[in-house]
């Protein structure tokens, strides 16, 4: 199952490196969407069905942590599933890790420089979670579009 991954970093080279690392880590098959800062990412997230996001911290306009807080607020308001949000950043003090994970609501944290092996270890649970949420969304969509008589389930029996 293909996951739509939003890669957010103000450095184009770093976005390419994250995408290359994720592809080589083979945790999932990805379709990438890129954003240069948190504000652009938020717009892309609203317009597209994003399954997972990899977020830089220090960016102009809207930082990564501000983006994470905003996404969590939106998810709560809309009663949406919380998609995995992973910080990919040069910040590495304990205070910053806590701020991202505990205060903002990020799911994971990976420090630059990262290796493919590190990605495989640290990101697996997040890509797994993204796949579970994607399956659930796909099933819900299918249920909404399939006529009751074709479902074969109790709805089909009732209305078939």
């Amino acid at each position, binding site marked *: 199952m293909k996951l739509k991954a939003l890669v957010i970093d*103000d*450095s*184009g*080279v*770093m976005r*390419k*490196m994250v995408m*290359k690392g994720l592809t080589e880590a083979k945790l999932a098959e990805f379709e990438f969407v890129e954003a240069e800062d948190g504000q652009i990412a938020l717009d892309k997230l609203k317009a597209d069905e994003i399954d997972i996001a990899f977020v830089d911290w*220090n*960016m*102009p306009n809207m930082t990564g942590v501000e983006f994470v807080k905003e996404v969590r607020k939106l998810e709560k308001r809309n009663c949406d599933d919380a998609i995995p949000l992973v910080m990919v*950043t*040069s*910040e*590495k*003090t304990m*205070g910053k890790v806590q701020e991202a994970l505990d205060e903002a609501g990020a799911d994971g944290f990976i*420090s*630059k*420089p990262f290796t493919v092996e590190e990605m495989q270890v640290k990101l697996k649970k997040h890509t797994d979670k993204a796949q579970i949420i994607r399956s659930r969304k796909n099933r819900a969509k299918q249920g909404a579009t399939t006529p009751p008589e074709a479902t074969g389930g109790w709805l089909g029996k009732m209305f078939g």
Partner: protein
Amino acid sequence: MSNSAINTDALPPAIIDAVQASLEKTYAAFFSEKPVLGANGQDRHTGPCIAGIISFLGDAPWSLAWILSQETAPMLAQKFAGFEIPFDSPDMGDVAGELVNVIAGEIVAQLEKRRIKAVMSLPTIARGSPLQLVPESGPSIVHLEYTSREGTFWLRLASAKGRSACMPGKQ
């Protein structure tokens, strides 16, 4: 000792130590190598260069520039990004910015261990032939010259004038 003997422009040694430790750790992680620090601190970059620059605020305001020559930059960029990046391309600015950003993150962590608070800015990029960062020398400037397999590069540390007296433990 009279007060005039205290140089408040000079960068605290703890910061220089943290920069050196961070550079060695970050460089080893990216390029699997420990670069060699030159014996003297002269600023000898004369040809076309690019620099990633970051400022730090906190207990001691200062800035760091990672200066790469036209010869060294593409070698480092190739290893860092995993693909070829020409010296004159905009992507080279991204690489210079990202390299100094990563070392700055490590510096903040190293300074925290030394009980020095620091918050880093976003990186900016400078290019020039020769690259001129002012002031070029003086008590507030430290130049570190490193040599590695990829070539020679420089770190330029500049303290914000007269603020090092605010360091913890100093009166």
